[in-house]
């Protein structure tokens, strides 16, 4: 069974059709790319999946369960996580707090426990803290644990974004332009990290990217959007030679 199934997804902003009849099937363990020129509607698709927008029409099913109509926090707690195109960390919270937050959907105690400092509360807090530290170590960020997020260098902030997304224990990870602003060497690192993530955390990855090296190097399937319409679906090599894609998007880079 497919992990994520999107059928006839359509979204309007006023009269503007941002996404039109978008279809997608993601199987567990895949890495799938979503590409397209600026304004093609890629981030809108992510926003629809994570409940930031409510689609005008269509279905999104995660493990067979309908996501349309659910609130973001419910969708996240079902096992989907995302990063953002521009860094949106909680700048004033510490690095550790940023990754602890992702556990919120899973914390199993109430205010009363917190006030009473009950055993349940302390166990849970400790578990979350330990898991947060583990995650920071895996991302080589542990030494920054008690620094405010805004004090980190750019590359570390991008790493923290991914670590924070993983803190809610997702099975599906949506990456919105993870290579934005990176130089070729950093992109190589990123590619390695994504491959490692996928195995280490048993993830399915759906990513938006502008840099062809990233998409072509890592994705098993690619969907191409242009003005909200799906203009091509296929393996990287097929996409690279698809005349419609070349026309809309790849033209200059390939020729």
């Amino acid at each position, binding site marked *: 069974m497919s992990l994520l199934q999107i059928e006839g997804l359509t979204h309007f902003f006023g009269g503007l059709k941002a996404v039109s009849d978008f279809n997608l099937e993601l199987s567990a363990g895949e890495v799938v790319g979503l590409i397209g020129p600026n304004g093609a509607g890629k981030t809108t698709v992510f926003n629809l999946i994570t409940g930031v927008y409510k689609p005008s029409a269509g279905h999104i099913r995660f493990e067979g369960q309908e996501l349309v109509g659910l609130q*973001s926090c419910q969708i996240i*707690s079902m096992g989907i996580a995302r990063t953002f195109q521009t860094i949106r960390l909680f700048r004033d*919270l510490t690095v550790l707090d940023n990754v602890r937050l*992702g556990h919120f959907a899973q914390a199993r105690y109430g*205010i009363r426990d917190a006030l009473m400092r009950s055993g349940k509360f302390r166990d849970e807090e400790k578990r979350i803290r330990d898991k947060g530290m583990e995650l920071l170590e895996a991302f080589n960020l542990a030494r920054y644990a008690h620094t405010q997020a805004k004090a980190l260098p750019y590359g570390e902030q991008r790493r923290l974004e991914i670590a*924070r*997304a993983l803190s809610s224990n997702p099975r599906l990870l949506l990456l919105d332009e993870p290579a934005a602003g990176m130089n070729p060497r950093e992109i190589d690192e990123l590619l390695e990290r994504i491959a490692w993530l996928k195995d280490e955390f048993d993830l399915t990855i759906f990513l938006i990217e502008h840099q062809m090296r990233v998409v072509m190097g890592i994705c098993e399937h690619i969907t191409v959007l242009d003005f909200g319409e799906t203009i091509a679906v296929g393996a990287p090599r097929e996409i690279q030679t698809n005349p419609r894609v070349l026309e809309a998007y790849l033209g200059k880079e390939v020729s």
Partner: protein
Amino acid sequence: MIIILMQQMLNGLQLGSVYALIALGYTMVYGILRLINFAHGDIFMISCYFGFFAAIAFLSNAIPTWLTFIATMMVSMLLTALVAVLIERVAYKPLRLAPRVSAVITALGIGLFLENFTLATLGPTPRGMPALLPNVNYRLGALSLSSVQILIIIISIVLMILLDRVVQKTMTGMAMRAVSYDKATASVMGVPVDRIISTTFAIGSAVAGAGGVLYSLAYPIINPYMGVRIGWWAFIAAVIGGIGNVRGAMLGAYILAFVEVFTPMVLPSSTYRDFVAFTVLLIVLVVRPTGLMGRVTAQKV
């Protein structure tokens, strides 16, 4: 002179504690919604009435005094929290995407509603809060110190420490800070934003509810308009401390309370206290526009 000064310090501590409990509600709600909840003073007034009726009900049964006191506090805190959450759901939540001015005007309207609703149902006659606890006066040298005074100061400080712990240490507090910083991102990180906002209203008002009972123990006259002046003072306290900042609100509350108790010692009449309080407010805002402990934020354009 020293004795009078010390005595007034004590009175200032007592009054400041009550102001702090109310100022916390302003500052927490502002922190999370950028909404100045002008109804908060009247929510405080409602809590005094809850305390009053609870006290009457419990006193008519033969239960131990300290139990009566605790039960009264609990009932007032709980009911006040319920009322505040109800107000948030009914009046503020539908306006979350509306211009900020709409929500502020709604808050003013809710305040007027609470005052007039109380006036209409309970009448304008002031009620006298029964003494829940025996008020023993202690003498510390030349200082006089009442048990109620000590109780108010201690309970307030304990509540403030608890609240500070919740905000700084717990997951709920962290979620509050995250929601305060960026609601959209917090939501997509799995934080149940609506629940966190309700929790914030509940905590802020429960604390004001505790303040209501403590206040009416010290100044046992309850009337429908009592929330107006105290609400304003607590609001000014929150602004002086840096609205949105929990510790700032506590600091601002004690500063204002000292202004209030020391003004009559220096100036000819206690009616100058508003003048002095607003002067302090203006000076703080001129020197530090974000308040004493507020952080500088850039306005998003």
